C-alpha cells in the first residue's frame, strides 16, 4: 500500500490510540474512583462503580481535606505572587530593554540567573525566620515572587525590545512622564506576554508543594496541594483513594478552567516566547 495512504488513515487512529491510553486511562481512573465507595476503591481499578456515590465523596473531600480553607489559602498566596511577578517584572524589563550600559547588562544578567539556578530552599527558611516571615503568607509570596521574577523579566525584556521606541517618544512629545508612559503605553502593549507569564507562574505556584512545605508547613495557612498531601498521606492507613481522587478533581478544575478560557492566548504565548 502507498505510504501516504497509510499515514492518512493510520495517523488519526494512532493519535486516538495514544490519547486513549496515555490520557484517557488515567483520567478515567480518577473519575470512576472518585465516584466509588471506599470498599470498592481500596484496590484501584478501571471498573465502573458498582455503587455510585460521587456526591458524598466530593463532600467528604471538601470537608475532611478542609478544601475551602485550602482554596482560600492558595488564592491568598498565588494571586499576590502573580501580580507582583508581573508588575515588578514589567518595570524592571522596561529599564533593562531600553537602557544600554555595562551596569544595566550586569543587573539584567543577575536578575535572569534564576532561570537556571535552583532556589536555596533551606537557607530561605533561615532567612524568613530571622525576618519573622517564616510560616506567613507574605513570606511565601516573597519566595514565589523571587523565584519567578527571572522568568517574567526574561520574557518581557525580549518582548519590549521588539516594541518600537517611537511609540514611547510620541507620548513623550505630548509631555507624558515616565510613569505615565509605562502605565499607558508599555503595560498595555505587554498584554500577550503578560497572559503567558500569568499562566506559567500560576501553573507552578498553584501546584507547588515543595517550597510551601518549607515556608508554610501544614498549619492553618496550608495551600491546596498541602491539603492533598495530607489526605493522601492518611491514605496509608485509611485506603481512601476515592477521597484522594475527588480532591484531585476539585483541585485541578480551576487550572483547567483557566486554560479553556484562555486557550488560544496561552498556546500562542508559550510558543512565541520560547522560540526566538
Amino acid at each position: 500500500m502507498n505510504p501516504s495512504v497509510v499515514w492518512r488513515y493510520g495517523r488519526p487512529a494512532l493519535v486516538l490510540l495514544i490519547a486513549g491510553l496515555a490520557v484517557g486511562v488515567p483520567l478515567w481512573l480518577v473519575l470512576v474512583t472518585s465516584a466509588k465507595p471506599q470498599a470498592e476503591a481500596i484496590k484501584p481499578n478501571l471498573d465502573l462503580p458498582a455503587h455510585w456515590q460521587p456526591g458524598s465523596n466530593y463532600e467528604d473531600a471538601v470537608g475532611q481535606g478542609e478544601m475551602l480553607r485550602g482554596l482560600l489559602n492558595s488564592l491568598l498566596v498565588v494571586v499576590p505572587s502573580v501580580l507582583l511577578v508581573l508588575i515588578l517584572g514589567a518595570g524592571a524589563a522596561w529599564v533593562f530593554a531600553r537602557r544600554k550600559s555595562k551596569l544595566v547588562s550586569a543587573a539584567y544578567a543577575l536578575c535572569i540567573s534564576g532561570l537556571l539556578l535552583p532556589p536555596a530552599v533551606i537557607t530561605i527558611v533561615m532567612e524568613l525566620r530571622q525576618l519573622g516571615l517564616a510560616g506567613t503568607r507574605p513570606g511565601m509570596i516573597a519566595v514565589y515572587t523571587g523565584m519567578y521574577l527571572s522568568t517574567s523579566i526574561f520574557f518581557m525584556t525580549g518582548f519590549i525590545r521588539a516594541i518600537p521606541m517611537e511609540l514611547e517618544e510620541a507620548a513623550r512629545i505630548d509631555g507624558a512622564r515616565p510613569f505615565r508612559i509605562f502605565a499607558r503605553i508599555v503595560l498595555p502593549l505587554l498584554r500577550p506576554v503578560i497572559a503567558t507569564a500569568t499562566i506559567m507562574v500560576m501553573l507552578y505556584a498553584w501546584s507547588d508543594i515543595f517550597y510551601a512545605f518549607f515556608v508554610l508547613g501544614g498549619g492553618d495557612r496550608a495551600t491546596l496541594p498541602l491539603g492533598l498531601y495530607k489526605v493522601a498521606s492518611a491514605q496509608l492507613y485509611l485506603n481512601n483513594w476515592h477521597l484522594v481522587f475527588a480532591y484531585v478533581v476539585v483541585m485541578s478544575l480551576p487550572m483547567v478552567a483557566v486554560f479553556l478560557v484562555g486557550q488560544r492566548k496561552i498556546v500562542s504565548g508559550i510558543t512565541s516566547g520560547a522560540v526566538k
Partner: protein
Amino acid sequence: MADTVVRSARKQASAQGAPKGVGRLPRAAVHHPWWFALPAIVVFAGFFLVPNLLNFYYPFTDWSSYHPDIAFTGLDNFKTIADDGTLVRAIRTTLLYALLAAVFQNGFGLGLALLLEGDSRFNRFFRAVFFLPVLISALATGYVFQALLDQDGAVNSVLGTDVPWLGSTTWTLVVVTLIHGWKWMGLSMLIYLAGLKGIPDDMLEAARMDGAGPWRTFWSVRWPMLAPALTFNVTTALIGSMNTFDIVQATTGGGPAASTEVFNIYMFRIFGQGLYAQASAMSLVLFLVVVAVAIPLVIGLRRREQLL
C-alpha cells in the same frame, strides 16, 4: 531620530517646568529611570540571591534544631554525607533522573508535535488533550500513577499481572522518569509545534522538488530547523527535572531502598529530622551540580544552533 528625542526632551522640560538638574542627567536616566527596576531587584536579591549566598556559609556550620547556637564546623557536614554514601548516590540519582526525564519529555513532545502538525480541528482538540497533564499538579499526577502502578493497582488488575512497577531498585527510577516525561510532554509538544510552524514552506517545497522523501526531509530540513526549540526544551527539561520533588514524593517517596532519592527528597527528609546544616550542604551540592550542567549545556546547544 536622535534629533526628535532631543527636541522632545527639551519640550518636555519646558512644558513641565522640570527641576534644573534633569537637563544634565543622561537622557536614558530621565526616560527610563532606575527606580522602575529597583523593586524587582530588591525582591529578587532579597529572596533569591541572598539565600543562595547564605547557602555558601550554613553548610559549614552545625545549624540544627538540637541546639540554639550555630557554630562553624568546617567540612563536617560534607564528610557525613560523603561517608554514608548519600552524596554520591544523590548526585547519581538526580543526574540519571534529569537525563531520562529530559529524553522522555522531549521524545514524547516531538513525537506528538509531528503527529499533530497540521492545523485541523482534530489536531487542535488533541493538542489540548495532551496538554491536560501539564495543568494537573505534579503531586496529583504522582498519586494517579501510584494508583495505576501499585502492585494492587489498576494496571496489574487490567493486565492480570503482578508486577511491582514501583518496587524495583533498578527500574523504578525509569518508571518515575517516564511519568515525569508524561506530565510535561504537552509543553514540549507546543514548543516543537511552534518550531515546526516556523519552517518556511518554500524550504520544504524545495526539498520535495529535489526528490527528498518524508524521512530525508525530516533529518535534512526539519530537524536542523528545530534547533532553537530543542535548545529551549532540553535546557528547561534538564534543569527543571533536577529540581524535581512532587512526582517522586507521591509515587515512591524516594524508595525502594532510596533508589529514587533525588536531592530535593533527601533535603526534605533530612530537614524534617532537624539536621538543617546537613540539608543545606546537600542544597549547595545541588546548586553546584546545576551550574556545572547548565553552563556547558547552554553554551554547547547555542553553538550547535549556529553550526546547523
